[in-house]
């Protein structure tokens, strides 16, 4: 009898394992399917690892040669483009519609700079995109509020070559139309003086959260800096450099009157909107 009970219990356990195994069928309700996707961290890690072990298989081959920067700039928006450059900066990784995505700043050795918007990749591929590594990307040229970028990426691949660009000093171009030619580049602003900015209670402070002071810790930081008698508003994009980043912490230590050098990427939003990534000692 004991044996019979043990056998039955063993059988029950086996059946339980089978029943919980998620054998897919057409009648599986959506919620179950979603549960299946939200695997524990360990399982997710395994999935990521297995993708990474075979990077060649996931890398599509882009047969076309990359355009040079001049041809890229001359191309009309909504046309297909192939560009190549080395990674200079990357925004954080997130999953959207079951697809990991990342936005990347690329630069080539001939002065070309590209913003790649929502490049589809796995988390591990994102980790492999170290600063300096080169990728080739096929997508569509687009313009959003003045920002020229590559979107709807069809394919991309790592290619040989490493390059880390020196930040270009564009301080003298601030306030001029010529600054647009430096869009998406890694740039440097020298001798910038921290000016007051109004917080939500109309007090003069060195920085605020959100453009009007309505935000809190974790939101974008905004601060005013001046050079040659002109004041400009710069941003620390929380998406690019979050509250744990050195630059985010550094800006929170700013004092009105500090003179600093700033490094960042020349993003565009209805005009220059530099996304600052580092403060350099004066």
């Amino acid at each position: 009898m004991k044996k019979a009970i043990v056998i039955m219990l063993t059988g029950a356990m086996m059946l339980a394992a089978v029943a919980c195994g998620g054998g897919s069928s057409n009648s599986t309700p959506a919620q179950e399917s979603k549960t299946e996707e939200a695997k524990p961290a360990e399982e997710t890690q395994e999935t990521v690892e297995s993708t990474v072990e075979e990077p060649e298989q996931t890398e599509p081959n882009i047969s076309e040669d990359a355009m040079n920067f001049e041809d890229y700039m001359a191309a009309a928006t909504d046309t297909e483009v192939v560009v190549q450059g080395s990674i200079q900066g990357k925004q954080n990784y997130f999953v959207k519609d079951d697809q990991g995505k990342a936005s990347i700043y690329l630069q080539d050795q001939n002065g070309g700079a590209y913003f790649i918007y929502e490049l589809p990749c796995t988390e591990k591929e994102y980790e492999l995109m170290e600063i300096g590594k080169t990728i080739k990307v096929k997508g569509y040229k687009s313009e959003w509020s003045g920002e020229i970028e590559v979107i709807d990426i069809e394919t991309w691949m790592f290619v040989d070559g490493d390059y880390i660009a020196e930040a270009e000093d564009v301080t003298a171009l601030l306030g001029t139309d010529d600054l647009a030619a430096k869009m998406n580049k890694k740039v440097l602003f020298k001798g910038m003086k921290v000016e007051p900015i109004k917080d939500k209670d109309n007090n003069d402070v060195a920085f605020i959260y959100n453009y009007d002071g309505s935000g809190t810790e974790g939101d974008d930081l905004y601060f005013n800096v001046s050079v040659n008698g002109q004041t400009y508003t710069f941003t620390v994009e929380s998406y690019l450099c979050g509250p744990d980043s050195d630059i985010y912490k550094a800006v929170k230590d700013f004092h009105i009157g500090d003179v600093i050098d700033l490094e960042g990427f020349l993003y565009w939003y209805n005009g220059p909107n530099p996304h600052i990534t580092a403060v350099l000692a004066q």
Partner: protein
Amino acid sequence: MRPFRKTAVFAAACILAGTLLTGCHGSKGRAEFAVPEQLDESQKIELSFWAKNDTNKTQTKIYEKAISDFELLYPNIDVNMRLYTDYGKIYNDVITNISTNTTPNVCITYPDHIATYMTGDNVVVPLDSLIGDAKYGLAGSELKFDGPSKDEVVPQFLSECSIGGTTYALPYMRSTEACYVNKTFVEKLGYELPDVLTWDFVWEVSEAAMAKDADGNFAVNGQKVMIPFIDKSTDNMMIQMLKERDAGYSTDEGEVLLFNDTTREILKTVAEHAKTGAFSTFKISSYPANFLDAGQCIFAIDSTAGATWMGSHAPLSDISKDKFVEFETEVKMFPQYDPANPRMISQGPSVCIFNKEDPQVVLASWLFAQYLISNDVQIAYAQTEGYVPVTTKAMEAEAYQDYLSRMGEDNDLHYDVKIKASKLLIDNVQHTFVTPVFNGSTSLRDAAGQLIEDVTKSVRRKKTVDDAYLDALFDDVTALYRLDQTTGMGSGSKEDMGPLPTASKALIATLVVTWILIGIYYVMMKQKSAKK
């Protein structure tokens, strides 16, 4: 500057991530909440309140004032606010915190999201018994503030917070989609602006605005840029158009009806006008307000909650002052197919409360949620944008009526475009509608917008939008948003899981047999020991 488009993208990502996480939070069931007899004012209670502002410092200050005023009335209750700038992040954080029983006490949210929160047992507090409580309910006898009665909450707005016949939230603010029109350009093109915009009118004027002069500039504005018609929210656009046509979107139970012949017809029309450049979207071009204010757009569709960004004298703007052009702005209802029978989508945040072990904490949460719909908060917050208070008590209050009557006195508090936007909704509450709420309704909404975005992009890239294209698009969007898996997930109801799988049936049978064997074995052992 307004939040970068990452907000929209991140919101979508968060919503999706949250949806995926929902399944694994398990159902750590709590006991159902029962209203305590009395609020224990000797008990120190700390509440967390997760709120959203439109990147608007005045809204932040109103929340802060509401909290301090409430704490003065109830000294034993402290409210800690956590501010967000988009609903997607709130949603994601709530979902994450359900699993650890660390949800906020009070939360600004949407009914669509609440439907997902409710997949846990007793996570969100049903409000009907609280609303009707004689002491602490709406206008209850023990309240320390002058709150609205149930009859004073606009019935349509309150009904929007009902899921499966139970009220799970209080409406907090209401808005709708409006069309902000450059009337000056419409007239310059030789047209007269009608009281109610029709689709035929909007498309015709938009195409007329594409004419260029000999220098290659658009004739109507003399600039190189003109996108006559831009829609901020393409999901709302598709939902509106389908509702106006009485076409399918979804059933109340969650059956997807989006992919129908009317949808095809709408998408072909959209493609026609996107091809000429007369129509674009926020995701493709940018905020409609940026183009409208610069004289580069004639019909800008956006929420009434974005009214302060619209017009020649908009108090908030992302473009530099030198780019503004002077024109007369009109605020009109969303374009209609049948102007005699207009339809307007109702939207705007609501406030829900989360269940906790201590009923005193839940009662305190309810009091604070209720305080948010008292006149002081409602009137102040509604004035920050083209919002509308959710109570007739606030709408009819002297202070609010005075505010409305001073339309155009200045370009700040009394900015005319903002007050026109509020009046648009106030005057048309009877024409408002909402879409069914069910677990999965957020995905369906995203899918509706995706159809318009994809069609618009495709024609800009010289692709042909025909029935074959639409067949493939419908399949792609169905798969992307898993719409083939949402069918039947009705409003908070438990879906039919279908017959048990064979393995499960076998498991149950085995367990039954095992218990029988254990029982027989037990009886045999008893008999054996009795014989001894």
